[in-house]
């Protein structure tokens, strides 16, 4: 067996360096990363990258910065209990090396969104991929109509990107609301499920695209509320989380029936996946 180098291999990684690490909560850290060798990551909001730590392996992480941010990109990583990769990632510091493959997949159809109102709904860690879109929309604000953002999380302590949320709240060109499932003594905002925020939003269903990103249980209830507001299934977008491995639509890990999340998604129009059992 002969071994030959293939520079155009889909498995070749791009060398990258961590510029900074910021702890967001007990379990999430935000990594600012730059590709080396003069390369830049050409991505769309909602796409993901395969992040490599040699000796540990690779994991798919959604890119949480907007492509309008130049020079580097951000990844928000939650360290999960026995997750070898995410725990290894949390041990990394500014100056450490990582590898990047991608970006992969289909992101949010921002061109299609232009001229439309937006209803962006995120629950829990779903704010990570959605933040990419939110910041993209803010940086191109005049291309879009009314922008509503609804955010939900378990407790105020689980709130990610608190400083940014504060700045979104202050903006006059965004209607922002957030809620927590359980409050805290110093919490002055809403308490309750994210679905409770939807009836209060005034929207024009024929001119609105809704985007929902969150844990599996959230989709069903949020989409029901959106449907109640007469938003048709083909104007609702979701981002699905699966364990993408190869990123090339081949290995089969992220396959749901006949679709591959890594190439056909992770962002899908709801009408495409609503009848696929187990999709959400």
């Amino acid at each position: 067996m002969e071994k030959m180098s293939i520079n155009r291999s889909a498995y070749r990684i791009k060398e990258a360096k961590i510029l900074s690490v910021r702890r967001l909560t007990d379990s999430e850290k935000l990594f600012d990363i730059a590709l080396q060798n003069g390369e830049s990551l050409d991505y769309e909001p909602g796409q993901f990258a395969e992040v490599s730590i040699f000796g540990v392996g690779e994991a798919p992480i959604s890119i949480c910065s907007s492509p309008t941010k130049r020079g580097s990109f951000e990844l928000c990583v939650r360290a999960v209990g026995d997750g070898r990769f995410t725990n290894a990632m949390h041990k990394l510091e500014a100056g450490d090396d990582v590898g990047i493959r991608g970006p992969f997949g289909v992101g949010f159809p921002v061109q299609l969104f232009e001229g439309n109102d937006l209803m962006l709904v995120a629950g829990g860690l779903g704010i990570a991929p959605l933040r990419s879109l939110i910041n993209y929309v803010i940086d191109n604000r005049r291309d879009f109509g009314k922008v509503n953002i609804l955010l939900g999380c378990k407790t105020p302590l689980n709130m990610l990107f608190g400083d940014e949320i504060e700045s979104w709240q202050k903006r006059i060109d965004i209607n922002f609301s957030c809620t927590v499932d359980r409050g805290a003594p110093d919490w002055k905002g809403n308490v309750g499920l994210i679905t409770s925020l939807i009836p209060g939003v005034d929207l024009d269903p024929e001119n609105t695209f809704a985007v929902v990103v969150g844990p599996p249980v959230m989709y069903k209830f949020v989409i029901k509320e959106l449907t109640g507001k007469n938003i048709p299934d083909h104007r609702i977008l979701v981002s699905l989380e699966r364990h993408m491995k190869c990123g090339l639509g081949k290995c089969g890990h992220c396959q749901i029936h006949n679709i591959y999340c890594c190439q056909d998604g992770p962002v899908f129009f709801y009408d495409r996946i609503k009848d696929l059992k187990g999709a959400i």
Partner: protein
Amino acid sequence: MQNAILRKSHLNDFISKLAAMEKVMAPVAKGPKHFAFEEVKSAKEISLRYIPTILPPKKYFMPQHETLLEYDTREGQKMRAVAEVEKIVLFGVHTCDLAGIQCLNIVFSDRPKDLNYLIRKNKIAIIGIECNEYCDEHASCALMGNHIPKGGYDLFFTDLGDYFFIHVNTQLGEELLDKTGVYEKATIEHMNALEDLRNKKKEIFKNEVDVDKNTIPELFKKGFDSPIWDELGERCISCGNCTNVCPTCYCFDVYDDPDLGAKTGKRIRSLRKDRKRHRFNRKFRYPVERYGKFFCTGCGRCTRVCMAKINLKDTIKSLAKEYK
């Protein structure tokens, strides 16, 4: 390109000469009803009448394990993306397995392309061989239309008594034939003999399940929640035999294999197993929707190796019975 014939008395010469120039892999008997593709030096080692080998020739195109990347983090982050390749000639590939290779070709050349596979594939010459009759009762090649050749080879041999008819399909095939120099040109009588055999085969090879192939994807769609899958699910012990031996199962894992000291190592791809209903749908429905092609070749291997005696033909028959 002129077709050729090879006298059976010259087969040994043909293989020996080929093996002197190239690494030749061919079906070899390993025990009762067990055959495997292995390197051969002479025709004596080859079993020309064989039931599908334990592992399909997939093992040369998609090895069980392969290195994708080598890395070294002792100083900075050095790495090399690699492909493992070997120049070989596959001799005696059945039409079902040719179809299997064609399926894999489609998957790995679909964008984004998998160069590891594609580079390796281009180093492999393929010589097919026709089945004049059924290998055994588990085959469903006539259902899938794979009992007759549909390309996917450089040369194709058909046993016509005391000689083989050779269909020369590619320039590479012609070059291989020329290098051995032991063939004769095919004449009109040889062509007629081939046509006679193909006509005779129409009487032998008949749709094994009596279900129209074109209705199968819909059948699997309708039968997605069928109790048949619960029943199979209970019997399946998830041993992974069926996916291992399947010529078109290509699901894989990617993981790191660090050397001692953990600073250097390899990133490996290895094949993995799948669940029953999903696996069946990935043969008879999903690839038809995605690539316009069935990914079952009818080779019968999954049925032969199943420890729970799950039978592919019976599964299709029961679905058809339930949803016709």
